[in-house]
């Protein structure tokens, strides 16, 4: 007989936005602060859960927004725009600096790769008081945030600022140190690093594996974008074909345009619906005149004198869904056709460089490191791995989530604690949103104005006015939030608002139903005895029920009527001017 081990999972009730965020950012909380116009406090709250508010505000794929309950009413709250705006406004007075955190631990931690996963792990560990060193192969830290995402989407200074903030905390970043060449696991251990996190991402482009791929004029997307980010000159000629439908493909296409290409075609083997790229990125690319050809896959690249001359493609049709749930493209026989191009940019995915790692760590087939999905521990104790090198190419926010989890594991490991205990979570989404008319009365969604390179010049006075206007619009947008989570979710910081909840005195309640009627969130219902019962997950602590209860059976836990009267008396006792 097998022993049954009961796993106790941590139960958490979260609003859908936070439940959807891989980095567990308190979305409802910072949106609530924005509703009050507290832009700085809002960014500070984001920084409690991750170090990249400005970066994610620009380029996150925002799963929070996709999960937003407001979509059932009209459109989701523009969470990402709000985050971006808050981070921009915070920067009004220059870069945000932070004081170093005193080192309370002596165990040194090494992190390989200064990308989103490595840097967030470093951030979390530094906050815990560990001496952390991050090793980076490239001349500047940031990983894909710096060398993968083009400048027009994510400006380099934004990345630099947020990394500088992490360095302020006391994290050391050593650039130009290549793992596998300058350092390896043994040298790191010999240098006294007690724990190592491998987070060097997926830095190589997947190859097309068709004839002609080594011709001059074929640039693989990751390397192409890295070259451009390094400031090297890349001659793409006039006609460019980009192969692939992900964000790298769109980035490569839009970057080619900025390098002077005139005619850019994105070739994708499935249809538009299956494209993994962000919808607004695809729209922006189309607006810039980039053409999309769907259901085509390259067969070979044709060269002339060692240079790319054309790309030969096959037409495809969609067959049965494959493992990813998308319909598999199937080639149509004898559908070959040719595009004449100067440059071919394959952007069909990324792989990790794993040749320098001990094979025990690896999942050879996928070229990733295999880890315990909960703790991110590898098969060798003291060595952890996270980010794209584990998952294959994913997103910034997922890497941040992995970095945070790795930091918790490393902290536990260094303190000799159980890595798993109490970490498994069962997340229940809370939402009160029903089809109520009142919420549809709220304002229409605001879409952030598209700011392009050709910005208008404004005077100081106009700029001030413009900023005030933008802040106002942002507050309106934040006010569209429906507050799906419980009251405590809204503002973690009690100095800013006091979490409250309604409490029913059952000896006084007569079951008159008034509270059920007045509660805007449907948080009060009758129990089996016909008495009022407050659902704590839905109660926002507004106190309308308490002010309306005919028997005065409902009082607020913290903000009682007596408390308000005490405040009034105190206020009246002060001098009036």
């Amino acid at each position, binding site marked *: 007989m097998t022993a049954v081990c009961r796993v106790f999972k941590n139960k958490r009730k979260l609003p859908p936005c936070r439940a959807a965020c891989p980095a567990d950012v308190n979305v409802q909380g910072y949106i609530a602060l924005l509703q009050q116009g507290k832009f700085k406090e809002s960014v500070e709250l984001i920084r409690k859960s991750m170090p990249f508010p400005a970066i994610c505000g620009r380029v996150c794929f925002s799963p929070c927004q996709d999960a937003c309950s407001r979509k059932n009413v009209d459109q989701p709250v523009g969470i990402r725009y709000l985050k971006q705006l808050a981070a921009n406004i915070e920067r009004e007075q220059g870069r945000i600096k932070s004081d170093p955190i005193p080192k309370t631990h002596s165990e040194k931690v090494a992190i390989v790769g200064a990308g989103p996963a490595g840097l967030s792990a470093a951030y979390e560990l530094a906050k815990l008081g560990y001496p952390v060193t991050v090793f980076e192969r490239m001349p500047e830290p940031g990983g894909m945030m710096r060398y993968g995402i083009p400048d027009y989407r994510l400006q380099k200074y934004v990345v630099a600022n947020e990394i500088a903030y992490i360095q302020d905390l006391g994290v050391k970043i050593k650039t130009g140190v290549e793992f596998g060449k300058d350092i390896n696991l043994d040298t790191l251990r010999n240098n006294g690093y007690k724990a190592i996190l491998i987070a060097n991402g997926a830095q190589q482009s997947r190859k097309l594996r068709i004839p002609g791929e080594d011709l001059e004029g074929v640039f693989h997307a990751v390397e192409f974008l890295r070259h451009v980010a390094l400031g090297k000159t890349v001659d793409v000629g006039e006609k460019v074909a980009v192969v692939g439908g992900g964000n790298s493909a769109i980035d490569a296409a839009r970057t080619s345009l900025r390098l002077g290409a005139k005619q850019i075609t994105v070739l994708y083997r499935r249809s538009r619906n299956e494209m993994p790229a962000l919808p607004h990125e695809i729209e922006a690319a189309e607006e810039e005149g980039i053409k999309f050809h769907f259901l085509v896959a390259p067969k070979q690249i044709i060269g002339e004198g060692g240079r790319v001359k054309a790309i030969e493609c096959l037409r495809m049709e969609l067959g049965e869904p494959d493992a990813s749930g998308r319909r598999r493209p199937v080639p149509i026989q004898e559908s070959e056709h040719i595009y004449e191009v100067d440059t071919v940019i394959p952007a069909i995915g990324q792989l990790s460089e794993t040749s320098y790692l001990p094979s025990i760590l690896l999942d050879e087939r996928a070229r990733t490191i295999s880890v315990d999905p909960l703790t991110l521990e590898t098969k060798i104790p003291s060595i952890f791995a996270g980010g794209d090198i584990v998952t294959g190419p994913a997103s910034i926010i997922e890497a941040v989530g992995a970095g945070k989890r790795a930091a918790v594991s490393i902290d536990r490991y260094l303190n000799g604690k159980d890595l798993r205990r109490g970490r498994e979570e069962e997340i229940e989404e809370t939402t009160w949103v029903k089809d109520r008319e009142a919420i549809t009365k709220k304002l229409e969604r605001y879409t952030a104005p598209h700011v392009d390179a050709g910005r208008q010049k404004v005077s100081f006075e106009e700029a001030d006015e413009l900023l005030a206007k933008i802040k106002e619009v942002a507050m309106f947008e934040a006010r569209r939030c429906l507050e799906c989570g419980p009251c405590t979710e809204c503002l973690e910081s009690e100095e800013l608002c006091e979490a409250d909840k309604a409490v029913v005195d059952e000896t006084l309640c007569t079951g008159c139903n008034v509270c059920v009627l007045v509660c805007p969130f449907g948080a009060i219902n009758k129990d089996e005895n016909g008495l009022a019962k407050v659902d704590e997950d839905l109660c*926002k602590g507004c106190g309308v029920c308490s002010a309306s209860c005919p028997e005065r059976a409902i009082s607020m836990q913290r903000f009682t009527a007596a408390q308000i009267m005490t405040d009034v008396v105190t206020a009246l006792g002060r001098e009036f001017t």
Partner: protein
Amino acid sequence: MMFKPRIIGFICNWSLPTEVDIASSNRISGYPKIRIVRVKCIGRIDPAIVLETFVKGADGVLVIGCPPPDCHYIEGNLQAERKIKMLKEFLSLTGLEPERLGLEWSYPFEIERFARIINDFRNKVTVLGSSPLAGERPDMDILLNIKAAKAAVEDFRLRVLVGREIELTEKENVFGEKISQEEFDALLYETIRVEFIRHKIHLLTKEKLMSIKEIASITNMKPCLVLRHIVNMRRKGMITLDHVEKTTPLYKALEVQ
């Protein structure tokens, strides 16, 4: 010396201008010319709290919330609006000027509007002068009236009526009936008058035994109307016949359960 009105502002978390909020470290903050008591939502302001604030001697009470239909708690501001409407009606019965109570809407980014609201309200209250309830020697008649009003808004009947307003005026009941806003308002005002007078009688007879004639003269009502109220109050257990002195029955208030 110029008269400086003592005004309490009940202002919600979500409409208080950021500039004012950040300047204050706690719930009570000093904005020039007014004392602010910050609340989560103005819908939380129990009518009894407003009346109690007047009893404590405030010259004015200003409630500020987010402009409808915007409200962090969906409709807390509308709930407050109903309660303020009821309170103003009560004030007109008590002899305290209803203008001493104000309800205004403002967004947190409208600092100028906020300042204007407060200035206007302060000017209005300055014209009215000091509250008859303020100072060492408050006007006892008005004080009694305010206390009667307070007892009335704490009682079941009005609270149920106000709490059910939306249900009664916007939704149909099980018989498919719906009453218009005018009908509801008429019902509400009638109830306010009745509840006010009953609670006043209750307070009067709590202090000393009284005859119908005495009550009629104090409340300035016809004795037959007073009798009708007393009959009703006896049925509800608010009042009882204590004893008959010669031929005059004297009434005494009962503690309401």
